[in-house]
């Protein structure tokens, strides 16, 4: 498409992004990395030239990554050798000890479009176990840009909901809460069922409104027949 843009050295040069993976969730981080590799964050993005506008990403502290829920025990990494009985399975918990880089790489490669450039984009993703960044010399050679994303360890977002937002969340449902996790669970299940009921009522109303129109049409047709 418009190739003249790539002649500009500022836009054509590949940036380097450094990401500290400690505390981040795998999928949330992988979506960001996949976008950076393809160059989707740049206004010069061109899907027919991902190798020209894509960037390099360095991921450090790969063993400090986190999963939510029960994925450490339940998530499987499978590969098949091609021979009968050649299926090998490793649980995510074991994979963290064996090869923590694979967890991130596997997630990112699944988010890159499946075509010939996938291999070359994968080569630009450098993942390391420790804090040491061996590409520091290469990074200093590139021109600095506000588009470069250098992420630190995961910081939990602060939540200060107002009274109005809380009322909206609990849908006008009120209960006396002790500060136990059990009572919170009970409240959440009750609120969920209450919200479902509200949704069902709304759906019925919508159906009724559609139903009001229908008999008119069918009645008119019957009269004609």
């Amino acid at each position, binding site marked *: *498409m418009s190739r003249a843009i790539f002649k500009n050295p500022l836009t054509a040069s590949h940036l380097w992004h450094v990401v500290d993976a400690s505390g981040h969730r795998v999928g949330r981080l992988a979506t960001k990395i996949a976008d950076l590799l393809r160059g*989707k964050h740049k*206004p010069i993005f061109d*899907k027919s030239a991902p190798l020209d506008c894509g960037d390099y990403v360095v991921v450090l502290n790969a063993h400090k990554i986190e999963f939510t829920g029960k994925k450490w025990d339940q998530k499987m990494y499978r590969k098949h050798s091609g021979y009968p009985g050649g299926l090998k399975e490793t649980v995510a918990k074991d994979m963290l000890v064996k090869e923590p880089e694979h967890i991130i790489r596997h997630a990112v490669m699944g988010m890159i479009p499946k075509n010939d450039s996938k291999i070359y984009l994968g080569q630009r993703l450098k993942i390391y176990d420790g804090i040491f960044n061996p590409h520091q010399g290469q990074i200093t050679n590139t021109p600095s840009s506000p588009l470069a994303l250098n992420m630190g360890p995961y910081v939990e977002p602060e939540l200060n909901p107002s009274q109005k937002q809380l009322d909206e969340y609990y849908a006008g449902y009120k209960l006396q809460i002790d500060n136990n996790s059990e009572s919170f669970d009970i409240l959440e299940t009750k609120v969920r069922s209450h919200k479902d009921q509200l949704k069902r009522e709304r759906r019925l109303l919508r159906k009724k409104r559609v139903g009001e129109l229908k008999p008119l049409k069918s009645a008119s047709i019957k009269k004609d027949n």
Partner: protein
Amino acid sequence: MNIDKIFKLAKGFYGRSKNCKSLARERVEKGLEYNYVSRKLKKRDFRQFWIQRINAGSRIHGLTYNDFSRGLTASDVQINRKILSELAVSEPYSFKSLVDHSKNILSHLHKNTYSPKEI
């Protein structure tokens, strides 16, 4: 079609289909079919392409494409996607003023209840 015309169109084809009469005729006819289809597809592809660029440009200033275009349509700014994408690439400051304008409009919409999606 005249065979000379066919060979002229079949230049650079793979294998025998650039030299053989019957094969060249087949390939050229199929090629012209593809040509017809891709003339229609070109319009859709370019629209996609422009939207991707505008999205990347507006995300730098903290708005998604969805919110950005909503602000523009609400204030009746009629710049098309082709020009917006060109602005995003070559004139970042004028593009930023447009984003700020749509942010301003969004804050007035729906009695301050509309909040843009966080990136």
